[in-house]
């Protein structure tokens, strides 16, 4: 998508270069592409409108006209402005009061319960002693869900099924005071912002417990309605921040921008999976890339760095640059990638347009992995170094020797060559003016 937006803008804006004056029409065409891209990412219509007006001035400015690649330049400006709008800096959670209370609120199905546990896990890892509170007394099984998850994480959970939410919260705070738990994390029931009675319940809890943080949990897949819900929750309750959930899919997540714009509240965390530790600090810059379909390269790089041997990675990077990447390296990569998480997750973080079709389907589950391993280890060193020499008799030998079919081998070889191409593309993208993405962060093995 990024590629296509940049391309479209490139075509639209090529004529701008060198011209003394920009025609209104050129600029409008460029802005239209931006507008559509943002709308497709689910940024709210009105937010987009204001945003594009803001962009206009910079888009017609010197920096674009002078640029050799005005399209890229405009994307860069859009990216910068998006980042600025979403807060530039990472915003941390504030835990004041004794005990500090963190209250979660949101629409039904947005992911509050899981998020409450993830937050508790996150805070307990940084030395806190959080207490989870099951204040959703409405949805069948909600308290049980929180309890089971808390047990898994070996964290305390307060519940008093049958009592009213406010009472449960009060009791929990008393317990926390006695036992030294902190913060107290309230999982409230999902509700519609239209439901006055239910919103009043939250107002009362807030008034009584004075939470340090009142966080709105927002599903990243939300479309245009994100502004309605967020502004209603904010008006009723005075939010202090937002947590974005389900960002592990392929969603572009324009809701982040909408919610941020209408509430002015920082987005503090992002949920990136169903596991109880799948919560990450929110990075405005990365979110901007994602909204523009540029992929979440930074997160990918960070993950890679966390899981990789730096020296090996550096060697590999050189091999890649010199196009000396072999099947042995491929195998090693796969082994390392498996430690990083799901292949799908990783691919989802790459710019969509850059990922070849075949690779999008690449699955590295245990079975397939075993197969790839067997295939590669059945090759001679020469074959691993130079797969081009693998002719049909070699193919039969390798397939037979590893207990696989020739099709399996063909698939592997095609994926391997696709992957090589991908490295090339990503490498050249880096050169095309997106150096800042990996600045100071060398040694990511995919490049």
């Amino acid at each position, binding site marked *: 998508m990024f590629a296509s937006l940049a391309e479209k803008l490139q075509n639209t804006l090529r004529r701008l270069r060198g011209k003394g004056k920009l025609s209104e029409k050129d600029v409008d065409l460029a802005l239209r592409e931006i507008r559509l891209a943002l709308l497709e990412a689910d940024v709210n219509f009105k937010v987009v409108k204001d945003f594009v007006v803001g962009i206009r001035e910079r888009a017609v400015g010197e920096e674009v006209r002078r640029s050799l690649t005005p399209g890229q330049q405009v994307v860069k400006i859009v990216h910068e402005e998006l980042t600025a709008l979403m807060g530039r800096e990472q915003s941390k959670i504030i835990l004041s009061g004794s005990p500090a209370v963190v209250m979660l609120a949101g629409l039904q*199905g947005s*992911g509050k319960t899981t998020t409450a546990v993830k937050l508790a896990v996150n805070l307990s890892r940084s030395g806190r002693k959080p207490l989870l509170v099951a204040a959703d007394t409405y949805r069948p*099984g909600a308290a049980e*869900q929180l309890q089971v998850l808390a047990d898994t994480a070996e964290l305390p959970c307060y519940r008093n099924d049958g009592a009213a939410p406010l009472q449960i919260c009060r009791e929990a705070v008393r317990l926390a005071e006695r036992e030294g738990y902190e913060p107290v994390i309230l999982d409230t029931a999902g509700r*519609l912002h*239209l439901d006055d009675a239910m919103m009043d319940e939250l107002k009362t809890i807030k008034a009584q417990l004075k939470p340090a943080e009142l966080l709105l949990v927002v*599903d990243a897949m939300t479309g245009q*309605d994100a502004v309605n819900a967020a502004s209603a929750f904010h008006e009723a309750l005075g939010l202090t921040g937002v947590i974005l959930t389900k960002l592990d899919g392929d969603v572009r997540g324009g809701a982040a921008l909408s919610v941020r714009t209408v509430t002015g509240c920082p987005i503090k965390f992002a949920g990136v999976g169903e596991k109880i530790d799948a919560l990450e600090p929110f990075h405005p810059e990365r979110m901007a890339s994602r909204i523009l379909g540029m992929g979440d390269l930074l997160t990918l790089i960070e993950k890679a760095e966390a899981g990789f041997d730096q020296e090996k990675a550096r060697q590999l990077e050189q091999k890649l640059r010199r196009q000396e990447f072999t099947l042995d390296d491929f195998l090693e990569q796969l082994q390392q990638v498996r430690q990083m998480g799901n292949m799908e997750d990783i691919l989802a973080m790459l710019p969509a347009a850059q990922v070849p079709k075949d690779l999008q389907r690449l699955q590295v*589950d245990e079975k397939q992995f075993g197969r790839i391993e067997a295939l590669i280890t059945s090759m001679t060193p020469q074959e691993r170094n130079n797969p081009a020499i693998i002719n049909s008799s070699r193919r039969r030998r390798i397939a037979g020797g590893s207990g696989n079919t020739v099709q399996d081998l063909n698939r592997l070889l095609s994926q391997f060559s696709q992957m090589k191409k991908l490295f090339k593309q990503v490498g050249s993208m880096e050169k095309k003016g997106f150096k800042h993405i990996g600045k100071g962060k060398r040694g990511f093995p995919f490049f």
Partner: protein
Amino acid sequence: MNLSLVERFKTGLARSKEGFLRRLDHLFRGGELDDEFYDDLEETLILGDVGVEASLKLVEKLRLESKRRKVRERGQAREILVQEIAALLAGAAEPVKPAGEPLVILLVGVNGSGKTTTAAKLAHRYRQEGREVLLVAGDTFRAAAVEQLQIWAERAGAALIKQQPGSDPSAVFFDALQAARARHIDVVIGDTAGRLHTRTNLMEELKKINRVIDRVQPGAPHCVLLVIDATTGHNGIAQALHFNEAVPVTGLVLTKLDGTARGGIVVGIQDILKVPVCYVGIGEKIGDLLPFAADDFARALLA
């Protein structure tokens, strides 16, 4: 159909209209079919989450159609669009129970879209018609998912088949379908775990469930309903594509229409999958499920 439900649906729709009513009223009452009119229409559709591509397409089509039919009035043009959208989305028929075998319905969708609640609501509907219903606790993954469905099963008066958390969901379905035959069940309603459509292994799991069901009872599942949250944006399209690739989706359920979101993404989904919207969810209570009314929906979308 229960009248109070219709009333409730209408209030729900009315509420979601509120903000737009005034502006659009003026938009459609008088005036010419100028660019401003079409731009506003496009905005309305996009704000209703119809999706950029589908919205542009619909408005473009309306332009041509209005010209062809020599329509001059905004109200008339709007009616054409309402009919167009309604025609796109209509066509759901109540599934017919095969003779001598249970009707098998499978609910699929991303996390939190409303599958379990919809399973319960459907169970309730069929119970009210006097059918014997079996709910299948096919979400063996999420914490307390079985407990949640169990409570609903009791409320609906439906039987429940479950296994230990963490067990293979297709094994649960295997059990359930065998039990359904033995117990002369009319309708089997299968809940499944929420999954993001990008998770290949979880989509494989869904395929396996489908295969196992078909093996025990050839031809089943008869309905695979993709449950879509009305607040969903463009991602709904990707959801539809991927879920349909794993298990052929026969219809949609649009949940949470009692909020302010208008659920327009089903228009874009329909454009690709060509399956009708079967039901809409309009609340958290067991009776808050209605057959989809394409005309009302299209009107609310444009209002």
